[in-house]
């Protein structure tokens, strides 16, 4: 797992049944991320929150990246 904001990486033990939502929350907690929206991507593809890793085609040794999803723009 890669933290897009810092470049830090961490290895995660995951099962096919783990959902993308769970992975995002675990990684955000591990890196003490601010409350905010984040997405997980593999390569150029954003992974669907509710899908599990098996459905998303994630394999062992794949590198997933946690990136912040910006929210602002009006204030």
């Amino acid at each position, binding site marked *: 797992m890669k933290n897009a904001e810092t470049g830090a990486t961490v290895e995660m033990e995951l099962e096919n049944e783990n959902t993308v939502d769970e992975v995002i929350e675990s990684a955000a907690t591990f890196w003490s991320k601010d409350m905010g929206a984040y997405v997980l991507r593999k390569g150029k593809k954003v992974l669907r929150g509710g899908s599990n890793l098996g459905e998303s085609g994630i394999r062992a040794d794949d590198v997933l990246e946690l990136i912040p999803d*910006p929210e602002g723009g009006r204030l």
Partner: protein
Amino acid sequence: MGEPIRAGAVDQDMFDRSRRIEWLDLDAVSNAKILMVGAGAIGNEVAKDLVLSGFKRITVVDMDHVVGSNLSRCLFFSEHDAKEKANKARVVAKGMKELADDLEVVSFASRIEDMPGSVFKDHDIVMGCLDNVAARIHVGSHAYAADRVLVDGAMDGFVGKVMVARPPDGACLQCGMNRTHSKIASLRFSCTGKDLVFHEPRVPAEITTTSVVAAVMVREALKVVSGKHENLLSNCFYYDGLRNVSEEMEVPRDPDCPVHARQP
């Protein structure tokens, strides 16, 4: 015989240089009806770029008023507007009109949620210049249901994002959301016991990222109205100004997202 040509005429035409871009359909641009939701930082930049690109029919919606902290990123706002607590949509509309006198611009000092749902169908393109997930969900779902292209921009510090949602087949904004979005959307609302209060987030922001995001948004709108669909962002443009990186990301259509799950 046609109109006589005049020496130096090319330098009198405001859009002469734009006309030299072959694929740009300036007639379509001037006839397109644009709904701009949000008239803050991104909204100011989008408004400027829309008018200077030749868009002539624009509706601006924002319920908020100008404050001093807006002035570092908002071309059309002044200290006087902040002192007077002038409505953002009204100030932006006035500023746009000063850039192009023949502009047909209408402003509404209103929340988009309080506007009639038909407002989406009444326009050709929706420009999302918002600052929170809850408003994006509203605008995204209504624009998609009305079969209107939504060009949505967002930023946080030096990170910016533009997403183009193209119904009926493309991914919508909610296809790219997950549980973290739901959490922050719910955090924006709290019950005081008497009323429901909406907390608006104050995120880091500066003008250079705002400008990049707004420019990409208006460029995509130009492609939409000019029929340059093969060159539209297929999904999402992601920009990291700190690292000088930008790239296109794929947001797959999610048949189970709240918007698509409701479709027949």
